[in-house]
């Protein structure tokens, strides 16, 4: 893994080990996925004939809507968790940073669980 020379270390993973590259790369992967999924979401919402309860539920119940919606939740939530982490690491230090990162994880996972459960409940309920 390029431990021999300084160039090798720069080309490899640097001071943060693999975690920094992994973070950077995942932010790009989730950015590409979110770009397509959010565009799909925006166009689908705009093209729905009505946003009333019955037609929205009927729409969300389709497999080709519920599955992209779940993927959107995973991609967007993962992406913003990485982005907010960078901001917290820029501006907070010491124990404040630890607490804020913990709160960020709780926030992300709680909202993601609510969103995913809601999609599945609508999609899987008899109707």
């Amino acid at each position: 893994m390029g431990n021999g020379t300084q160039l090798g270390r720069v080309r490899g993973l640097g001071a943060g080990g693999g975690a920094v590259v992994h973070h950077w790369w995942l932010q790009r992967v989730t950015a590409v996925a979110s770009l397509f999924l959010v565009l799909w979401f925006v166009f689908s919402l705009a093209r729905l004939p009505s946003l009333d309860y019955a037609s929205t539920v009927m729409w969300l119940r389709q497999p080709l809507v519920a599955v992209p919606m779940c993927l959107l939740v995973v991609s967007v939530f993962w992406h913003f968790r990485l982005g907010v982490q960078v901001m917290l690491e820029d501006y907070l230090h010491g124990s404040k940073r630890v607490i804020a990162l913990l709160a960020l994880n709780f926030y992300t996972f709680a909202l993601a669980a609510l969103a995913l459960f809601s999609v599945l409940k609508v999609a899987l309920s008899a109707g």
Partner: protein
Amino acid sequence: MASRPIAPPPRPLSPHLTIWKWRVHMAVSIVHRVTGHALAFGAVVIFAWWLASLASGPTYYRLFQDIVFSPLGVVVGFGLTWSMFQHMGSGIRHFIMDSGEGFDLVTSRRMALATFAFSAIATLAFWAFILLGRGY
């Protein structure tokens, strides 16, 4: 036993926002972070609430719609939609810059301006479509 290290005096911080002349490249970079956080703590909450209200039944969904399509709700929604398109545009700018392109001054300035133009047009088009096309 090693004693607890004494904290060194705080290092001087660069006055990064106050001493530089504002340029569009720096504005788009700062706005990328600000809009990202508006989305992470605003749009994402409304999105999860929308899904939860759909899963909770027509009464809850009616409450959600009443709040989101209230005048204040539309203003917030407009701002978050702009944030989404602006973050999308500056995100695509980041993809281009990640590939090593667009760093010369003219292109860099053009791309930064293009993100603002894109977000303004896309936001207006989206809301015109939603409000005028549907008659809410």
